[in-house]
Each structure stands twice: as C-alpha cells, then as structure tokens.
C-alpha cells in the first residue's frame, strides 16, 4: 500500500459544544468546521473560503474567537465550543442579535453567524469600543452585501445602550 493511501485511524475526542459534552470518533485532522456541521449537524457555522479569510466559520473556542476551518479536530479535544446556535438563547447575545435585526446588519445572512460571534467576542473584551475599534476588530469577517456600515452601527448601538456584559 502506498504511503498516501495509508488510512489513519479515527481518534476519540471529547468536547463541550454549546454547553453539551459530546464524544466523537473523528480523524485527528478533520476540520473543526466539518465536525460541527457534519458530525454534529450544527449547520449555523458556515464555510465561505476554507482559508481563514472570510470569518464565516468563526466560533468561540474556550472563549476565544477562532476560524473553525483552520482548527484540526484533535486540537479541539477538551475544548468549550460556542457556535451561533449556542449563542442564540444567551441573554448576553440577545441585544446584539436584536440590534442586527433592527439596523439591517444581515442581508443574505451567510456572514451573519460569524459576524455575530466576532461582535460578541469583541464586546466581551471591549464593552465600549470606538467605531474605529469596531471596524478594526471585525475586519476579519468579510461581508459582500452590506458594505459593513449597518453592522458597525448594530455593534455600536449595543455598546451605547450598555447592554454588553
């Protein structure tokens, strides 16, 4: 059997996803994005580029914003993952999601889950960001529909209302 056709055995990983501990048999180099979407059926996290540029695959891993398309499954072993499904329902995210709706921050919606994760992460680190800081810290999430202004407005609105905790 040639080197390249040798199959690696799957390994077992255990991780908490949106508060639920799950054990899975996965290939160590499976992408976390695919584990979430196909392994766990959590399709809210999206694939836009597969190269860590668009941010549509953003999730929180141990409270830190990451691009799940660039995380091998084994490195997520033991981690706490929060996806858009987990965020929806969190009171701390509700004002952000409401602001997105009110400000027209979601058009086609494909960048929206990642954008909300990024905004949530931003506000958790900086509850009162300046407009410039919002723009800079969301720059890793690409949107093709909105031109960003209404997204930045939504985040600024939440910061202003002091609803961020």
């Amino acid at each position: 059997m040639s080197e390249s056709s040798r199959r690696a055995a799957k390994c077992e990983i255990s991780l908490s996803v949106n508060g639920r501990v799950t054990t899975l048999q996965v290939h160590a180099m499976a992408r976390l994005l695919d584990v979430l979407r196909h392994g766990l059926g959590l399709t809210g996290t999206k694939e836009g580029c597969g190269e860590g540029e668009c941010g549509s695959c953003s999730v929180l891993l141990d409270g830190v914003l990451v691009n799940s398309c660039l995380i091998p499954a084994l490195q997520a072993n033991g981690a706490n993952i929060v996806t858009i499904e987990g965020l929806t329902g969190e009171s701390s995210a509700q004002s952000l999601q409401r602001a997105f709706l009110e400000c027209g921050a979601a058009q086609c919606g494909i960048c929206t889950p990642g954008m909300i994760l990024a905004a949530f992460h931003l506000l958790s680190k900086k509850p009162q960001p300046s407009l410039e800081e919002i723009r800079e810290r969301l720059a890793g999430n690409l949107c093709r529909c909105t031109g960003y202004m209404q997204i930045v407005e939504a985040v600024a609105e939440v910061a202003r209302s002091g609803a961020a905790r």
Partner: protein
Amino acid sequence: MNHSNIVGTSVPRLEGRDKISGQARYVDDMELPGMLYGATVRSRIARAKIKQISFGSEINWQEFVIVGPSDIPGTNCIALIDDDQPCLADGVVNHPEEPLLLLAHPDRHLLPKAVEAISVEYDSLPAIFKIEESETLAQVIWGADNTFKTHLIEKGDVDAMWQNADYIVEGEYTTGAQEQLYIENNGMIAQFDAEKGITVWGSLQCPYYIHKALMKLCALPADKVRVVQMETGGAFGGKEEYPSMIAAHAALLAMKSGKPVKIIYDRMEDMAATTKRHPSRTRHRTAVSKDGKILGGEIEFTIDGGAYKTLSPVVLSRGAIHAGGAYYWPNVRIRAKAVATNMPPHGAFRGFGAPQSLFALERHMDRIADVVGISAVEIRRRNFLTTGQTTTTQQMIREKIDLNKLLDRALELSGYHLKKENFAVENRQNGGKKGIGIAAFLHGAGFTGSGERYLGSAVGIEGCADGKVRILVSSTEFGQGTKTVLCQIVAETLGLRYEDVEIAQPDTDQVPNSGPTVASRTVMVVGKLVQSAAIGIRETLKATGKIGDSYAAEDFRRACQAYVLEHGKFQSIAKYEQPDEVVWDEEKYRGSAYAAYAWAVYVAEVTVDPVTYSVSVDDFVALQEVGKVLHPELAKGQIIGGVVQGIGFALYEKVIWENGRMLNGQMTNYIIPTSADLPSIRVHFEELGNIHGAYGAKGIGELPMDGPAPAVVNAIVDAVGVPFNSVPLMPEDIFDSLEDRAARDLHSSARGQGAQEKR
C-alpha cells in the same frame, strides 16, 4: 381601511430571525438520505481538441459514478439565449475550467484526488484572451467573426455635425473583470425519480432559467422538472446563469446513480470557473461647442464575452443604452459589440454593462471639461437631460427630474466647492494629495425594451386557511429584501398587518414564473403585479359580500378563512402587460428602453498617499432619486453595499489572468474591502414617484454600482493631475503613471499642449 404605514417603514426583515440565529438553511446545510457528493473535472487549457482522457489506476473507479457527454439524455447544452454552451465539453474545449466530466462518490473527501487522477491529452489550438486579439480575427473561435452580438443606436446626424465642433475630444476607457464574491459558494442538490422526474435545490437567482435548461438537457417535460430555491448567501448576478450549469451537472449524476447528489464548489473552483463581470473597452469621440455643450459623438462599446454567448447580448444591450448616460445627445452613434475570447464565459454582475459604459462616460465628461476649460460641475450642468428631452434611444423623459438640483444637493452634502478650494491649497503644501470627484448617472429598471413583454411575468396571491395571504412569485431573496418588500406591498394594498402576509419559497411546482430576479425589476415590476394580484384577492372576497369597501384587517382575515373553508384555497393571478407608453423598436434599437430610470449623483473624496500611492476614500456621498423608498433600512443597505462593491471595482478587485486562467482565485489574494477600509457612506434619497412601479418605486439594486468607480477615479485624477482611464486602478498603476510623468517632465522642453491633444 385603517392601517399604520407599512410601505415606507423599516419593518423587520421577514426571514431575519432565521439569519441571525443560524437557522436559515442554505444548500450545503441540507442532506438527503443516501446522498452522494459530486465534483467536476475541468479543462486546464484554453483551447484544444480533446485527444484522450485517462483514468489513473490509483483510484478504484468502481466506487465512483462517472458522467460524460454521452450520458446526456437530451441536448448537451445549457439553454439560455443561444444553445452554444455545452454542459460538458465534447471533443473540444474553448476555455480553461470548461467542464469535461463529472464524478460522484459518497465520501466528499475522496473527490479531489479522483479529479486529479484524470488526465487529459490535448491537441492544443491557438487561443485568444483579449478584445484586441479577438478583433484581429487571426483566430476565429466563435461563429464567422468572433462576434456574439452587435447593437447600433443612432440619433440625429452624427456625420454632419463634426464640422461645427469647436473641440473634438477622444478617449479610450477600459474596465477589468470583477468577481461577484458572494460569501456563499455555488451549490446544488439534485434528485431523480422515474415518476416525479428531476428535483433540484440550490443557491440561485432564477428558478425558471434552471427549469428551462434542465428540460432541454434531460429531455423532460415541464412537469417533470422541479427547481427549489434555498436560502441564498449573496448573488449579485453571479447566480443568474451559472447555477443552471451546476444544476445540470448534479441532475446528470443523480440520473445516472439513482441517488441524490450534492455539488458544492469550494472558493477556488467558484472563483476560477464561474462567471465574472465582462471586461470592456469604450472609445469616445465627442464634438463639443466652445461653451461645453455636447453636439454629438460616436461611442464604440465593446465587451469580452468569453468563450460562449451566454448573456452577453443582454449585457451589451444595457451597456450600450447607458453609454450616453444622464446627458442630452442631439446626435449620437453608438456601436456596440460583444466578442468571443477563450476565457471562461463572463456573465451577469450587478449593473450588467452599465457600470462599464458609465465609467467611460463619466471619465470622459471630466476630460471634456478639461479640454474646454470649464469645471467638472459645469460640464455636467450644461449637458444634463431635462424633462421633455430624449435619450440616446430617443426615449422622452417625461418625469420632472431636475438633475441640476440633484447635483446642487450632492455638492452641498459633500461640501464639494469648499473642499476643492482647500485641497488645491493643501496639495501644494503637503505630500498627500487630496481630490474630490463626481459621477452623475442614471439606471434603467426592468428588462430592456420589450423584454418585460417577452418575459410575460405572472404572479399569484393565494388566500390561506388561516386567513393569511401568501405571495407566489419566482422572485428570489438573496439579501436584497425581496420577501420583506413584497409582503409590505401586499399588506399595505390590502390593509392587512405585515404579519398577515406570507411568501412561498420559490419552487417551480408552486409558484408561477414572475421572471428572473435581475435587472432591478423585482420591486418595480413584480411588486406592481403583486399589487394587482392582491387586489384580485380582495375583489374575490368583496364579491362574496364578506367584506365591503372599507374593512378592518381582522375582517379580511375572517373573510378569507371563511372563503377557504367553503371553496378551498383560492388564487388570484396577475400577468404583466406592457404599458402603452413603453414602445420599443427592437430593430432600430429606439424608443422607450426602460419603463423608469433612477437618477443619481455621487461624490467621492480621496487621499492619494505619497509614500505608498494607495488611495483611501475619505468620504462618500450617494444621492439618488428612486421613485419611492419602500423600506428605508433595506434601501440604505442596498446603496451602501453597492457603493462598496463599486469602490472594490475601482481600487481593489483585480483579476489576474494567465492564459485565461484566474491566478488569484482565493480570498487572500482577490481583494475586497474590509470594514477597516471604508469611510462612512452617506446615503440620501429623493422621491419623484413612478407610475410603473409599486407605490411609485423604481428599481435600485444595481444603480449604486454605476457611480463609485468614475467618482473615485475622477477624484484621484483631481488629486494627482494624471489622467487614469482604467479600473481597477491599483497603487502600482498610480506609481507607474507618476513616474512616467516625472520622467517626461524631466526630459520635455517645449512640447505644445494643444486643446485637442489625445491623452
């Protein structure tokens, strides 16, 4: 009828909750039992005869479904305007990335290697990649003369007026390809059943385009093909025609395997293989009087259609008709042609020919101003179309549009005059060059000429058992607000609450063909039809006596419930009828090209960095007259989004080609603006109404794409004083031109700078 205003208010986006919670279902979110994944084997070469296809022995091909041209039950083509584009290349390839074979397998991870394991032997043929190469006819790659289509627009007597010109101003302007870069890649799922036929679900704009294409490809009757649109993550025209190709591929694999098949492109494949904006070249030759009035001119507008006809004739049409812009041309000859090259076919992208020809025109107006010695503002004032004048196609402008006032307002909003003065002073002192530029333009909404009549759009409204009404249209939502606005229109028309109106997901089994979701026609044309159909529902209920001329929303709902209980679900259909005033001569290309025009003036302020030659857009004013703003938040979002794509078109988005292949097909090196790159974009509206649109609305989806590139480039020219005539305009290009000018200045001594100099 007592209701709060729904039209004109920013009601919640209908499907907004699903989008912000991750519940919205896009095609890759769906799986069917027993589903296979499909992949496409593509040509790597631009033009060749296929000698042999070999399957590498390292793959167990028994595991794979393999589809080739011989598996096509019907005609091997993707039916569109012409049938020249094969679904799978058969014997010859005409562009890189042309589909050759299809593979399917239960494990999506095994596909890339299998695709790589197929090798193709070619007898390569000489290929052409540029408009100029196509024109020489050294290689004839399509038809008799590489020409997909020509249009000729003539008005007045162009040949006679040159002698009266005080100035003759010439210019050539080019625009490059642009990738739509919707964040959701293309995808389709197909399922075949001997009884039901083919069903496809996908990311798409035009269900009935796909329906027509599959009928022909699979040799199936209309009721054995079903197309369902799923939530679509951005489109911008990029999902107008190519989804038919992908649906065809998925359908063939589904038919051969007997299993559902999903094809999802990754970003590299999507960028390299699917359509892009047509590259263009526009040549202007204009006769101008000494006080800056356009006496007339010749405009030659040429677009590169790529290897097959696809939609090029229609892009050409719109580009040609918009080539004269918002100005009065007493005499004009517009010669337009779409030519073939061995590039992957170019296609629809927001604006659809108009951004190309309007870029040229608006740059040319600044050039004319320069030659005549008047300002960019003045040259426009002196030539604006006014009510009662006719366009280049001799369409009478009947509405009371005052472009001078629109310009005044844009100048005021942007602080144009003061800035222009200050920049002149600042630029002398500082290294950084600041500039401000204008673009004034129009955009016709709906299909050109008799296009809407040929479409014969039909919409339905259904009365439901729960008392709600449901809109039945093939118009698709892909972020622009189709669902929301159509529901607003119906709710307002019927005096219902916004929540009382639903809209069916576009499914060709359930909705009539209201035409494609393109050409900025949805709110205006389909919206108006939906209004008529709604009135039809009301008339039905009124006829039963269950409601009178005046009623409360609950009365209507109860009446509807009762009616359905008695008679079952009921529908009202409305069909498009061309208004009498919209008269178009398809042969002479003359008359009312569009039922309505939206008008705009954009102002861009830039700084050119002296160290890096990069351009930053510091302020942007987008002022437009749009008939009526039906939903302020959505309308604003459309303008801002379009402006940002236009800024991308001008400054960031360069497709790098090598022998017809896109080299920078990744998000890391095809550059679109991020949130950190943009100023506040200040959006303002005016409303003149529109008798042909629902509640007076005009189409606005594409309008914002036309203005930013010329406004920004005019501003850059204002800043550095070097004429730039191409987009995208990169810092490297600015640097090269400044260096060239510096070298020329160094070596030139006595060079006459005549007023008629070609620059």
